[in-house]
């Protein structure tokens, strides 16, 4: 079973929920798709066994073959090429790796070349196997890294996919192969706005889903009201607990430290399994 954990903004508790869900399972795979700032490793502290570079294809010019026809320059929608002083200039960071220029070149002066944009780390933390996507600073898009992560998803185990915040391309890529989407929401009006974004997304993708209400205080909870109004199943409520803050600040995992949270997350995992398989 593959569970994607997502939210409309950062800081709602995606990583907290993902890491604890993975640790509540007997055996699990934790996949950090938040490639711009992966932080599940801060809690799981995995032993890294393997690092695989992730590359994108960019053109490289064989200068002696280039006719200077500028067909590639005119073709590129992102203007990743320029031709000045009888020389082709290539701007790798601007290139979107469509490969069109290579196909189009009448002199076959452009060839494929690989550019590293990040890597995937494989590791182990107790009963949890980890896959972490790391995008190099300054890179435009993490999608190729997420594609690499999703290709590596195992079939059998309980797999928890910690998604990037928001509802853009990188999130869509992260939830594509998920059997269930778990939406983490904060108890504020702003939290409702962000919940609505991911709610729209999972409906669009026709994924089974449920909500975890995080940081719950006594009194009104606009996110809970939103779930009621839209008949969304709330699978768990996590209190705004000082102890959690203290554990998190030390990089400790609640499920591994506190019996109460072990029960809470085991129940949540059971609830998800039931919903995902029904």
């Amino acid at each position, binding site marked *: 079973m593959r569970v994607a954990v997502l939210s409309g903004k950062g800081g709602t508790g995606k990583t907290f929920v993902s890491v604890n869900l993975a640790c509540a399972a007997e055996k699990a795979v934790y996949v950090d798709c938040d490639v711009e700032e992966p932080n599940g490793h801060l809690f799981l502290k995995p032993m890294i066994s393997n690092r695989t570079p992730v590359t994108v294809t960019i053109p490289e010019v064989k200068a002696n073959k280039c006719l200077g026809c500028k067909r590639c*320059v005119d073709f*590129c*929608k*992102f*203007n*990743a*090429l*320029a*031709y*000045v*002083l009888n*020389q082709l*200039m290539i*701007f790798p960071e*601007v290139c*979107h790796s469509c490969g069109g220029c290579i196909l189009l070149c009448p002199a076959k002066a452009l060839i494929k070349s690989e550019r590293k944009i990040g890597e995937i780390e494989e590791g182990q933390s107790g009963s949890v196997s980890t896959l972490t996507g790391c995008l190099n600073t300054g890179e*435009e898009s993490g999608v190729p890294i997420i594609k690499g992560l999703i290709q590596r998803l195992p079939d059998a185990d309980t797999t928890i996919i910690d998604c990037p915040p928001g509802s853009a391309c990188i999130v869509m890529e992260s939830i594509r192969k998920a059997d269930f989407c778990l939406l983490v929401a904060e108890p504020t009006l702003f939290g409702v706005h962000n919940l609505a974004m991911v709610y729209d997304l999972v409906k669009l993708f026709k994924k089974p889903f449920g909500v975890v209400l995080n940081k719950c205080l006594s009194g009104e909870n606009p996110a809970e009201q939103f779930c009621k109004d839209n008949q969304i199943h709330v699978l768990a409520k996590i209190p705004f607990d000082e102890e959690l803050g203290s554990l998190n600040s030390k990089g400790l995992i609640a499920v591994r430290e506190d019996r109460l949270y072990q029960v809470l997350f085991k129940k949540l995992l059971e609830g998800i399994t039931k919903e995902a398989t029904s």
Partner: protein
Amino acid sequence: MKLIIPVETQSLNAPVCPSFGRTPLFVLFDTESGKLEFLTNHAAESEGGAGIKAAQFIVDSGAETLITYRCGENAAQVLNAVGIKMYKAQDGSVEDNIAKFKSGELSPLTEIHAGFHNHAGIQK
């Protein structure tokens, strides 16, 4: 000497356009013959890399000097490859800037920014 300047409208009284890559027009001015030409900047509609395309356009136009408020690093790389000189535009019309350039009152553009790349909110 051929001068090129980004400009909002087809007039020498118009101010210099604050955008380089996405200026609607360039004015190409020959300081010797006084010949004047307004050229459409097709880079303005680009999905990305507008600066690179605009720089390519400037190179192809045969201009030797560019007066602009700003220029990104990719565009600067193209312009520098051909040795096009860049001067920092001053507030006022295109005509004022040409006059100031002629009298040596414009200083070379030294700060090259890292590019806005869809972050400036002025591109689409």
